[in-house]
Structure formats: C-alpha cells, structure tokens
C-alpha cells in the first residue's frame, strides 16, 4: 500500500458541465504531488470533491486504502485528509494559536466535562506539532494576535499552519502562494519540502508554474476538467501538450486584450453612434 490517495474516474458535474472529468490521479505516500492548470481548469473543484465539499457524480476516491466517497468533510479531516482554503476561511474570533488548537485536538464525548472543570487533555505530540507549525510558518510572534490584525499574506500562512496542526497524513494546499508578498512566499516555499519529514504527503495546487516545478516530485496538468499531462517536473517542462494548454491560454489572452483595446477605442470615438 504505497498510495495515500488514489482517485479513479472522478467526475464532478455542475449543471451539465463537467468541472472534473474522469480524473485519475495518485499521490504516493511521502511524496510531493502538484496539480497545475489555468484558471477555471477545475483544480479547486477537485479538492472540494475529495474533501467532500461538492458531491461527485462518478468515480471513486481511495484514501489510505479506504473508500471515502460517502464520508462527511469532518470525517475525512479526522482520517488525516486536511485541506487549506484559497479564500482564507479562518476562525476570525479565535487567536492564531487557538485556530491551530482547534484543528490539533480531537474530542471524545466526555471532553466537555473535563473542560468544565478545566482539566483539558494535554497531548505532548499535539503541542509539539502546533509549535512546529507556528515556527515553520513564522507565526510565533503573532500566536496570540487575532487573524484580523494580520496582513493578508500572514493570514494565508495561518491557514496553512492550521492544516499542519492537525497532523495530517495528506495535506491539500489550495493555492497557498496566491496573495503572498515576496518574503511570505519565501517562508512558504522554503519550508514546503519540510512537510514531508513530518510523516505527511503533500498535494499542491497552484497556477504558479515556477513554484510547482521547483518543489514537486510529480505533476498533473488539468485543463477543462481533464488530466492532459502528467510526469516529473522535467517531463512537464518539456511537454508539448502543456505548452499548448498554457500557450493557448496566452494566445487567448492576447486576443482578449486586443479586443478590449478595440472596444475602448470605439467607445472613445463616438458615443453618438450608440
């Protein structure tokens, strides 16, 4: 059993449109796997599908040898499949450290009784994990601050730290580098590979080719919901299909820009015509 996550034929349909179309993808244990693709390719939908936030219409997802297709989001998280969100989604009313504590500790049915007499369970492993997560994301100095007092980039790092605090088997990072300034990107990028030393596998989504090519062991490329290419960073760099997908996008963008210029020109020239 060497694969931590294995999807086969995973399909997500939104009103007739296949946002993910028969995606076959594997994340080997202890490896760093990336998923890239242009905007709207279905990357986030794929994460939403395997974490249970959108229903799948076909296919299966096997996590640690267990079919997780029917599980609720929190059940998947409890089994060690933990994600971050592109759009922050922090607990705004809790301090940074409390954000991590929530994710770090699981509860038993009697936990609330212990809490009432202030005898909370202290788990050395969990505490260490949280310390490590704060440390690696450079959040030690703001552990007691509220998320709303931090910059957007640091809030993003809190999101990653919160996922790390849960000691996941597989961490799914949804565009963690988007919106980070240079210093913050370096903190993140410099430590991503270290995640692997803490008994976890990593699955990274991003459209920043540079980051993905530099940290991943293996890369999948998604376009219009379909896997169009896969391979090592070297292979992806040289793949014609990938170039075409990205080039195609670029070409489209150039056209769009040209079109915009034209419309604005028309607009400037004559309001009377309309």
């Amino acid at each position: 059993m060497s694969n931590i996550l294995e999807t086969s034929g995973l399909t997500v349909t939104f009103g007739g449109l296949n946002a993910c179309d028969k995606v076959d993808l594997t994340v080997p244990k202890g490896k760093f796997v990336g998923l890239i693709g242009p905007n709207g390719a279905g990357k986030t939908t794929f994460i939403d599908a395997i974490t249970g936030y959108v229903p799948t219409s076909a296919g299966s997802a096997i996590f640690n040898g267990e079919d997780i297709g029917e599980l609720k989001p929190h059940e998947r998280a409890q089994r060690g499949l933990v994600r971050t969100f592109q759009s922050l989604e922090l607990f705004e009313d809790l301090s940074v450290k409390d954000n991590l504590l929530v994710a770090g500790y699981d509860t038993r049915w009697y936990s609330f009784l212990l809490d009432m007499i202030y005898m909370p369970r202290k788990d050395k492993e969990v505490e260490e994990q949280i310390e490590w997560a704060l440390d690696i994301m450079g959040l030690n100095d703001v552990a007691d601050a509220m998320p709303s007092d931090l910059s957007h980039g640091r809030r993003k790092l809190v999101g990653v730290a919160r996922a790390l605090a849960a000691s996941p088997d597989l961490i799914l990072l949804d565009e963690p580098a988007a919106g980070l300034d240079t210093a913050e990107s370096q903190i993140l990028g410099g430590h991503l590979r270290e995640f692997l030393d803490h008994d976890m596998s990593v699955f990274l989504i991003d459209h920043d080719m540079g980051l993905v090519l530099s940290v991943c062991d293996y890369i999948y490329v998604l376009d219009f919901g379909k896997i169009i290419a896969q391979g090592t960073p070297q292979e992806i760099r040289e793949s014609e299909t990938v170039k075409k997908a990205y080039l195609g996008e670029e070409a489209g963008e150039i056209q769009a820009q040209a079109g915009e210029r034209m419309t604005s020109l028309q607009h400037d020239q004559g309001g009377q015509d309309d």
Partner: protein
Amino acid sequence: MNQFLIALIAGVGTGSLYAMLGTGLVVAFRGSGVINLGHGAVAGYAAYVFNELRTSGELYLPWFDIIPEWGFLQTLRINNLPTRIHVFDFEMYIEKPPLVPTLLISIGVSVLLGLMMHLLVFRPLRNAPILGKVIGSVGVLLYLDSVIAVNFGGQNRSSSGFWIFKPDMEPVSNFLGLGGTIPRANFSMLAAAVVMGAFVFCLYRYTRFGIATRAADENEKGASLLGYSPQLIAGINWVLSSVLAGLAGIIFLHKTQPSLYATLVVGALGAALFGRLTSIPMTVLGGVIIGMMSGGGVSLANNDWWPNWLEIEGVRTFMPLLVIILVLYFQGDKLPIRGSISVGRQPNAPASNNVVVGTIFAMGFALILSNVFVSKWEAVLTTSILATLFMFSLTVIVGYLGQISLAQFSIAGFAAFMMIRFVGDGTLQRPDDYYVITGINMPTILGFVCAVVAGTLLGLLIGLPALRIRGVQLAVVTMSSVLAIEELLTKSRSLMGEGAASIQPTPSNPSWFGQYIGGFNKETFRTDYWKYSLFLVIITALVGVAVVNLRRGNTGRRFLAIRANERAAAAAGINVKNAKMLGFGISSAIASIAGIMLAYKIPAVQAENFAIFSGLGLLAFVYLGGITTGYGAVVGGLLVAGGMMPEFLGVHFGDVERGMINAVGAVGLILNAIVTGGEGVALLQSDALGKGPLALLRRNPDEDESSEADEDNATEGASV
C-alpha cells in the same frame, strides 16, 4: 365532515391577519434584509393608538416619560417628556371622534414607528452580523411591548374598528350548503388581505420604486452602483411595512386584543416563509392556509377520539410552527439570505484567566449581601442571581456557539414543571393551595436530576432544526416554539398535573441532604430563606465556573470556530452537528437548573412566569451585560427587572414600572448592538479602558477593509 370544513373556513379570519402581517414582514425583508420579529408589536401599537383615540381622544406617543421627578430637574423646569396629546374633544359615551382623521393619525404614528425603526435601529445595524440584526428586532419587540404595557396598561379593549369587520353582523348561514354558520366579517377580512397583497404586489411589479427594491434585494452592491441608495430604499420599505402592520392591527381590532398582536407575529412569520420571504401572493395564501389549519386542527381536537393530552390551545399554536418547520426543512436552503455590502464582526469572546478569583469574589459579595439584607432585599438578590444562572445558558448557546435560540426560557419553565411532577406525592402542600401536586414521589435530588434530563432532551429537540438552518431562521423557529411549548407541554394538565394551566404549587419542603433549601421562609412568610440563597449562590457559582471554563478549553474553541465559519470548522475535523447538539444540551441543562431553582424559591409557579417576554427580557439584559462572557451574565443579572439595580434605583428615585425596566433594557440592547457590536458592558472594562471608550466607536471603519473577504465567507458558510 361538514363541521370540519366549516371550521376550516372559519379559520380564514385569523388567516387573513397572518396574511396581512406576513405581507408587511416580506416588505421589510425585501427592503432591508431583516426579518422583523417585532412586526406584530408594531401592529399592536397602532391598534392601541386607534382604539385610544376612538375612546378617549388621546394620542399616546410611542415612548414614555423617562425624566425622573428630581428636585433640581424640577427647578430647571425639566419636568417631563410629552407622551400624549389630547386630539379630540367630544362627549364621551354619546359621540365618537370622527373615523377618518383617527385613521389618518394612527397611520401617521405607524409612519413614525417605521422611521424610528429604520433610522434608530436597522440603519445603524446595516453592517452588523446576523446576530446583531436579530437582537435589534428583539429590541423592537420588547420595547414596543413594554411601552404598550406602560401607556395602555395592556388591558382588554372593547373594539372600536370599522363596521365591515364587526363580528356581530348577521353570520352567513348554510355557506355553500355546508349547514354551519360563518362570521360575515371573515369575508371582508379576507378581502382586505387580498387587496393589501395586490397593492403591494403591483407596487413591486410596476413602479420604479418596486423595481429598485427588487434590485437591491437581489444585489445590494449592484443596485448602489446603478445609483439607487439602498438605505433610502430600505427606509421607504420600513415605513411601508409599518403602515401595513398598522392597518392590519386596526382592521382586526374586532377579532383580536391588540396585546396579542406581538405574539401573533408567529403566524405571520409562517406566512412570510411560505412565500419564501419574496412572493406576496404566496405569503397571503400561506397566511390563509395557516389560519385554516389552526381552525381545522382545533375542530379535530374537539372530537372524542382526540388524545386529551394534546390541549386544544396547543394545537392552535402548533400550526404556524409546523408550517415554519416544514418550509425551512424543505426550502431552507433556497430561502434568500441577503448579504449586505459588508458584514461586521461577531462580538469578541475572550477566555477569562482569573476564574477562581472572580468566582470567589462574586460568591463572597453575594453572601455578604445576603447576610446584610433582610426580607425583601434577600428576595431581590436571589432574583438577580437566578437571572444570572439562567443567562449562563444563553452565554453558551448564543455567545459561544452563535445559535440564536429564543426558547431557552421556555425550557426552564418546562423543567420546573417537570420537577414538580417528578417529586409530587399527591398531597396538599400548603393549607391554602388550590391544587394538590400529583406525581411519582421522587426524592428531591432525584427529581431535580430527572427534570434537568427532561429539559435537556426538550432542548435537543428544539435544537434539531439548527442542524439544517442557522441565523435568523433559527431565531424564527425557536421563537415560534415558545408558544407551542407553553401551550402543548407546560400548560398541559394531563402532562403536568391539575395546576398546570393556572397556578401550580411547588413542593413545600424541598430538601437536599436533609436541609430545607426552599426560598419560602416559614417564619416570615416571605421568599427570603437564607439557606436557599446559600444553595443558589453555590449552584450558580458552579455553573458559572463550568461555563467560563468551557471557553478556556477545546470545547469552547470549537464552539467559537463553528460560530465563525462552519465550513472551515468541518475542514478542521469538527463534527458540526454533534457540537451544535452538545451546545444545545449544555445550554438547556443550565436553563433547566435555573427553572428548577426558581420553582424552589416561590410557593407556586405559572406558565406565565416563563412567557415569551420574560425570556426576551433576559436575553436583552444578558446581551447588554455581554453575551460572550461570564461577567456579562453577572452584570445582566443585576440589571434585570426585579433584580438589584432597578430595585435599588426604585428605592432612591421612586418606584419604576416593570414595563419601563424592560423598555430601558430594550433600548440598551439596541444601543449595545450598535455601539459595541454586542460585546456588552462587561467587556468595556477590558477593551475600552485600555484604548479609551472612543476606540469602540472608531472600530467600525477598520472593518470595511476586510469586508469583502468576510462577505464571501458569510455567503459560502451559509451555503454548506
């Protein structure tokens, strides 16, 4: 069968009232995104104004004289705030003031109320989180109900409405060949509801104002980009909503006592939800259907085969709740939840670190007071402590978990009655008691535990809808459950014993470990027994420490995580459903304990002790004190009507009416929601003293930066 059909048709009268009030609710919702729980009270106020003008010619303004009669104020000639205007001079009993001017003045008062609601309450709260808006509408409800009580005495009124709605017209006999008779007024009421609905429908469909309202309702940001001011639109809709409420109140004067309108809003909520808070025709239809269901249900309940533990009045009050639950269950995810342009923060809920010191201090203070005080003051002190004890239940469910349950005080009442039933031994408790208490003769402690369990189970049942719905919808369900619990359970004679429907005597000799701990002092014949105070202080301290500790531990962190973002909470491995049930369980257990402790204090309890306005008043004061902290509950307990603060003020500045206390509480509640975002008086010490009180006022602009992300969170969180 014919009997049943007749009953169905007879229900159309009440149904028309629901339809009219529901129409006004939808108007306010479309205009501002607020479900106004105080809508019925708005109708009630206008109805009282109309009635008072017609009987005495006096116009009562919607406030009361708050200026005390202190010497120096008198010398400055600051005597009083005008509260009434003499409008009509006429010979009483012989003639009546003219109808049309009376109606116009009443509508003018409705316009004033609508403007007040918009400008003083909901406009300042436009960016508040849902809790703040719900609290604002609870404030409106409580304020108007209190002012009605002070200004009009809340007595029954002989009707003075329009003749076409009079019930004493000759009834329609043999309607559609069914045999029975139907009040003729039902038809005019239905016609009035349909006309009103058609008017609003056309207004929204064919006028520029209506289109602007619909645009703002669907996309506030988009509408403001097109040059419509959402706040102007909201203001006009508030006035319209208030006028519709006033008209409904006046039209139904013959059928309903104006004091009942405030609670009749439940049926109107059902109607508005039936119309998905959007469609006026469906709202009118929904109101009529709910009215018919109530009529039909009561008719069925009159049959022999009907189980007599299901009280008739309970069936009547259950019908709107049933419709509300069904609509929310099947349509809940399709109901519009309006995202305002920016959403403010939830009240801060800091963990407290000096629990032991704080508790010892509070206990010591309470015990010293209890020894200093004699008689009346001891009873006042225990009133405050009881309120604090109950408020801890709201700290957990509303403060920590962010679930707005308005039914917790009914759970307290249910548990109190259950305790009496469990320990009842079929004997007369006091020589002058009217009823014996029958039951299963449990020892006091066992009865206490079983009643707490029963109350907790009821709380879990009420919490069930919270698994699917949230925010204001939950507030609507829980508010509707209050009446159903009261009529179906607490007042049920077969469930609770003979006295349940009127006055239920409490056990005269409650003893824990051989000690008499009842509040009734057998020597002074007052509720001032010192052992009760001691017992109550200990119980309250234990509960308080437990509640504060919850926040310090992982359970509280999880609750706050759910309050902030259910979607992310699930990603952090939190079982949101279980945690919500846990919150409802803990809160209901605390509420049950408070209810039982109240029953230990006084010689007899009534279902009215736990009525909706008492519960809302307690919510108001704990929100004023600070809903998220233990201190807040202590402060709230001191402020509550009949508690330390008002009684103390009463001694020094002359007695104040109970209604006034609640009205002051309602104003404080709204102010608190606006100024501190609900953090309350208790947090002022920690927050404001550090940065200066102005920091609190300045906080709002900062929030606009993060508003866009917050809005996304809010809408996404709501769609999970």
